[in-house]
């Protein structure tokens, strides 16, 4: 396949009000492409693996940016950059699992431009799909990664359904660990989804990673007070510390009283298309002391139900160890 230097011709809109962006998004529907920072967008278009009639650049919409305190917790505009999230004093103080996750995305330059909305709405990183092959996720009827010759070291352990691609976002597991609420707007109004509902796997919708509908814009992410200042843990393992996507990551939140875990949310990323919440672990550690002993006793449960592909079996002990470290920390 040839490598193209430039993107094909398209229209570009740069609305400054969210209402206008919604009008344009609704007008173009599936032929419009929302752009936050464009860091997951331009590769698709340069490679001619996907196309659009119009780019809708959201970056000039003031009301979609910034981290603010509300009565219920914190609201983050979807266009807030990952650097702003990584450096936000409010987030570092009370929801550090999210600022820690944002701080290890890609590279400094990508974090300077890439947005939270784009990070959680990005597509999977499967090279067959990204190269424009017509696999299941692209509307075809074959998965190239799950064949005897397929390269699937980065792919899923769980919840595969024809497509075996894993989720790529580092902030997505943190948002599930924080029980975040996603605020979606369209010309018809606003709806909210929990982060767990926002991310969808191939069994639900094989062509999309989120519940966003055509014409909808993710405008904000809300973090509830209930999880402010919990004990947090985030760790990402990747081949290189910069640019590379997580092979596995873990995002965890623990409420601890008197040394014992009263409530927790433990989530792994890059092991299936959506962030995987480990509810069996959460239940098993409830009431137990937070530390190495508890961690050791439950770590094996982390990978229960995993189905390794030809080349991703290493993710099973990796996942168990990351969960162990999260509970030990």
């Amino acid at each position, binding site marked *: 396949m040839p490598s193209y*230097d*430039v*993107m*094909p*011709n*398209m*229209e*570009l*809109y*740069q*609305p*400054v*009000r969210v209402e*206008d962006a919604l*009008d*344009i998004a609704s007008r173009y529907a599936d032929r419009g492409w929302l*752009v936050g*920072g*464009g*860091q997951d967008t*331009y*590769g698709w*278009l*340069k490679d001619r693996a996907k196309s659009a009639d*119009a*780019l809708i*650049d959201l*970056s*000039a919409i*003031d009301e979609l*940016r910034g981290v603010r305190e509300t009565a219920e917790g914190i609201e983050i505009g979807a266009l807030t*950059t990952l*650097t*702003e999230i990584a*450096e936000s004093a409010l987030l570092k103080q009370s929801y550090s699992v999210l600022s820690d996750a944002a701080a290890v995305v*890609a*590279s*400094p*330059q*990508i974090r*300077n*431009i890439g947005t939270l909305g784009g990070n959680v709405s990005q597509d999977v990183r499967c090279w067959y799909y990204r190269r424009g092959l017509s696999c299941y996720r692209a509307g075809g009827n074959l998965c190239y990664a799950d064949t005897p010759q397929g390269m699937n070291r980065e792919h899923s352990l769980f919840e595969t359904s024809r497509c075996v691609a894993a989720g790529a976002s580092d902030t997505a597991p943190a948002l599930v660990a924080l029980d975040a609420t996603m605020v979606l707007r369209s010309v018809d109004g606003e709806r909210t989804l929990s982060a767990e509902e926002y991310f969808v796997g191939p069994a639900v919708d094989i062509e999309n990673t989120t519940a966003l509908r055509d014409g909808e814009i993710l405008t904000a992410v809300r973090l509830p007070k209930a999880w402010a200042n919990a004990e947090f843990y985030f760790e990402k393992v990747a081949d290189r*510390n*910069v*640019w590379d996507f997580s092979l596995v990551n873990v995002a965890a939140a623990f409420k601890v009283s008197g040394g014992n875990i009263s409530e927790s949310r433990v989530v792994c990323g890059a092991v299936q298309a959506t962030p995987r919440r480990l509810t069996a672990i959460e239940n098993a550690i409830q009431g137990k002391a937070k530390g190495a002993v508890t961690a050791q006793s439950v770590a094996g449960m982390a990978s229960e139900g995993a189905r390794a592909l030809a080349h991703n079996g290493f993710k099973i002990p990796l996942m168990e160890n990351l969960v162990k470290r999260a509970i030990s920390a």
Partner: protein
Amino acid sequence: MNLNLTRRRFIKGVIASGAAATTTGVWVAANGASRPAGAVERMIRININGQVRTVDVAPQETLASTLRYKLGLTGTKLGCNRGECGACTVLVDDVSTYACSVLTHSVKNGRVETVEGLEAADGTLHPVQQAFVEELSPQCGYCTPGQIMAAVGLLRENPSPTREEARMGLSGNICRCGSYDSYLDGVMRAAQIG
């Protein structure tokens, strides 16, 4: 990165484009005859290295294309053209940015700086350039403009970084010659002479 700077960038963007929105009362900032209402106007004015340049920019054009192929500023290199190497690093309102992975239209209200803009009018090199010369930082030199711009961006935000902070600051720039330590030596020296 300095948050005030990012904030200033978007405030400027909003002021520049918002002015059009309030005078017309709608989002139709510039209504080209052959374009759907509201799509961007191709002729733009953009501040590059302190000079306001007028240039015809396609809607989907990246900043690297505009700099190299429209304005002749070939100091900004293209390595991967996919956000994976850092050769194209420039500053937009002091913030390091991959020019291959940002639309020119998205940064047209900002202040763009490329490696060509660093040298003083009398030929004095920027402290980072001078330090990179003294420390023999580059080998083949292909990644050097990007390394320089990343270092300038880092030192504006953090004028005396630790070596570890400098390593993080330059971590978005690949050097195929593996000259990383020499570049870090250069950044540490630049912080002293800067």
